[in-house]
């Protein structure tokens, strides 16, 4: 059983469990699934700076912060008890593209060639951590939600704005992965 839990889970299992989060949060307390809002609550709690966008009672949304702390703890527990001892299985054609970027280490979920402390004060670190993170935070709030709020909660509730947002996420992602990243790695 533990061996089965340690090996990577099928997409359908993950899809069902993530989909069930929507009704579970609604039934537990009429809460709408959405994660990027937690970043806004952190701003409202720590540095509202008299900006009207952050002047609200963030404590009313603190459930959202408990939720993301849970996501962090879930990641930690999986790291302690359910780590997959094998290399990640990645499609050969993607492996070929990544090899041209100089990425060949598949021992972990993230490529160690990029996501390591030693890259923090390099151009690579600036692009992948600082710039990338900024775009994620700025873009999700500008769009009014992220993959959870728009692509899952919004689409499940048949919201047209969420479909528009999801299409925009995907278009941005396709451009980034196929045009921007090759340029970035050429530069580095």
């Amino acid at each position, binding site marked *: 059983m533990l061996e089965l839990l340690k090996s990577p889970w099928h997409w359908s299992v993950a899809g069902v469990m993530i989909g069930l989060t929507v009704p579970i949060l609604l039934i*537990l307390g009429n809460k709408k699934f959405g*994660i990027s809002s937690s970043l806004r609550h952190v701003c409202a709690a720590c540095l509202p700076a008299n900006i009207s*966008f952050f002047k609200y009672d963030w404590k009313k949304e603190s459930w959202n912060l408990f939720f993301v702390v849970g996501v962090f703890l*879930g990641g930690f527990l999986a790291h302690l008890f359910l780590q997959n001892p094998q290399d990640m299985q990645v*499609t050969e054609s993607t492996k070929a593209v990544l090899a041209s970027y100089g990425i060949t280490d598949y021992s972990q979920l993230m490529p160690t060639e990029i996501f390591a402390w030693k890259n923090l004060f390099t151009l690579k670190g600036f692009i992948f951590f600082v*710039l990338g993170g900024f775009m994620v935070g700025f873009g999700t709030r500008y769009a009014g939600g992220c993959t959870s709020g728009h692509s899952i909660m919004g689409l499940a509730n048949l919201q047209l704005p969420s479909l528009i*947002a999801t299409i925009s996420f995907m278009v*941005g992602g396709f451009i980034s992965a196929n045009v921007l990243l090759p340029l970035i790695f050429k530069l580095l």
Partner: protein
Amino acid sequence: MIQNTIESPEIEEIINTDTRHTDAMCTNESALQHPWWYNFKYMAVGIIFGIVFIKAEIISWFRIQEMFQLTSFHMYGVIGTAVVVGLISIQLIKRLNIKSIYGEKITIDNKEFNKGQIYGGLIFGLGWAITGACPGPLFAQIGNGFGVIAITLLSAIAGTWVYGKFRDKLPH
């Protein structure tokens, strides 16, 4: 906009809810007041959610590259299945008039279109393929031992703050 003179707590509550609604999917309209430790049940849901993120490799930068290079069905399968399960669940809740465990009526407000969903969506998409993470996986990645992602998270919080600061000047 927030008025300087707020006369009744009722108006204050409406203004507060409006501000929280702005550009957010997950505002909490629940009128119920509970002690803070009631929130631990959401942490429990988050823990299971985080484990799923790791074990289905959703937090993996490699899986995100595969998704945007169209070389694997994995992420499409995850998101597609989640949408279908969520959709069926919401329909059941609405049609059977299912209440929350506190007996409260479940309400889901509609989202209004603004151009931010396109501009912001594109910016997020660009960042998504670079970091290999949307906001949720950032938390799970840090928990999973990639400490340096804390910098990405801080930067994402900074991005959110900058959006709030310049919101009035951006096209919506």
